[in-house]
């Protein structure tokens, strides 16, 4: 293509190029459309949350929650511990099960009827509203065994399980078949191949998927509302005793008439957002390592 011709093309703004410019503008506008409300939300959370969470640093993150909610003063420590306990417990349940389940789907099941059923049901399960999980665990666990962080962990695990299965299966698909064949050729059994070759190869991706699931779970409210109870002091026991969580505290304090309680809700919101971001960033780091490795 000679230079004069190019200049020609550029000079004549046809309908096609105009349309292109307009549509590019529309796409850019979409970015603005979502950026504005999100910035507003984050601004409120950071401005109001920082005021309450960092005014008395580090007390807000360590002190117990004031028993009298109308009184000003810091303290979300027990809620942070409760959130970590419930999500930690959920991770211990959902990740091993989810990874194993995905191993079955990809390495054994393939397209058998049972595998297809499980795959479909896992998809159905991702769609189960979180409040349904909460009610389910309340009926199945809390009524017979009482309030505890573990009840919350169970409900969150139900939410995480299908997500972990899905993301792990995706990662297993990325492991090249030659790796497996190489292992078989060396005489390894299938289980040994999976444990020593396939899973390590997919590990960064699996971890990253799990961390994203954890980030989601940490922010869930409805499943915890019915299952963890209402403590205002530290409870490090996973299996016994009422506990609390950041999301539950936000929900409770959001509807309080008292400014100090609302302040604590904003502080807890900031803490929760930071926690979720932390898990997401960790996931990103793992993905980045995965990408450079491959």
């Amino acid at each position: 293509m000679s230079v004069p011709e190019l200049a020609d093309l550029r000079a004549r703004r046809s309908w096609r190029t105009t349309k292109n410019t307009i549509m590019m503008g529309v796409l850019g506008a979409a970015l603005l459309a979502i950026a504005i409300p999100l910035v507003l939300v984050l601004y409120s959370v950071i401005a109001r949350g920082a005021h309450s969470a960092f005014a008395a640093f580090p007390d807000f993150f360590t002190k117990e929650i004031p028993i009298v909610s109308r009184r000003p003063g810091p303290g979300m420590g027990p809620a942070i511990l409760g959130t970590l306990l419930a999500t930690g417990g959920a991770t211990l349940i959902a990740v091993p099960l989810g990874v194993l389940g995905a191993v079955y789907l990809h390495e054994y099941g393939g397209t058998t009827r049972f595998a297809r059923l499980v795959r479909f049901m896992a998809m159905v399960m991702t769609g189960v509203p979180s409040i349904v999980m909460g009610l389910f665990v309340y009926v199945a666990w809390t009524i017979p065994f009482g309030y505890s962080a573990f009840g919350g962990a169970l409900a969150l695990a139900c939410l995480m399980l299908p997500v972990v299965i899905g993301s792990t299966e995706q990662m297993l698909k990325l492991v090249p078949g030659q790796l497996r064949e190489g292992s078989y050729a060396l005489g390894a059994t299938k289980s040994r191949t999976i444990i020593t070759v396939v899973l390590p190869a997919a590990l960064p991706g699996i971890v990253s998927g799990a961390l994203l699931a954890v980030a989601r779970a940490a922010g869930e409210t409805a499943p915890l509302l019915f299952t963890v109870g209402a403590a205002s002091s530290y409870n490090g026991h996973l299996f016994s005793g009422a506990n609390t969580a950041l999301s539950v505290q936000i929900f409770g304090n959001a509807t309080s008439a008292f400014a100090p309680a609302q302040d604590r809700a904003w502080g807890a919101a900031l803490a929760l957002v930071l926690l979720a971001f932390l898990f997401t960033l960790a996931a990103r780091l793992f993905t980045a390592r995965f990408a450079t490795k491959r």
Partner: protein
Amino acid sequence: MIDLRGRPAHADTTFRWLAIAAAGIVLVVLGLIAVIMTRRALPVFSEMGVHFFTSKRWSPADELYGSLAFLWGTLYTSAIAIALSLPVSLGVALFVTQVAPPKLRRPLVYVIDLVAVIPSVVFGLWGILVLAPHLGRSFLTAGVILAIMITPIITSLAREVIETTPPGEKEAALALGATRWEMIVGSVWPHSKSGLVGAVMLGLGRAMGETIAAALVIGSALGQITANPFASGNSMPAVIANEWGEADDLHKSALIALAVVLFLITIAVNLIATAIVRRSTARSRGK
């Protein structure tokens, strides 16, 4: 050697069964949910019969429980949320992957994935303390909050789908003289269509099941079936969250019945999504 072969074989079977059991847990949990919840919901189903689905009157004082208005509220707010969110999230996903300068792409993707994990209760807090005082409590307010909430999620999924378009197809379109927009319409869109449906359906599922954010701003009017977006209404998960605390026997059963219906609807949405995806992939293969 014989010894070695014998033991791993045993371990092999154990591992295999372990994996099958783990996969089976999904079925067990879903089965338990269905059985336990349905059993708890039975009293209201037998008391109300078909009226539970066809009546819009929900009156705990009269022990009358009709869920129609809440079904409407759930569908209407989700529809508002999707209508607001769909164009925006597709636009952003396309902008990030096809238009933004390469240097900007990575940071943008990071930011979108980051905001996608902001917990819904945080949006609820913002909704009740910041948005509701200005916008009131209505279907629209709930729809807007839900839209803000699901847009990053749909965007994040849509971006992943769009990025799977083979670069060859895009370059071919550009080489033929297509503008960037024509390349998007001609190459990216046909390739990603079915995946995008999945992304949107996931967003829809989230919007329908979202409890806390909706419960705080929807206005909680009973029996409202109206297309007026500024009217107060109610959605199924919001009713459960708002009324659970003071509910007695049959009322509680009615709330669990709402959960069961919500569960069935999400299954239906998933089935429809699968069907759409399957049909469109079959068609594109048929071409």
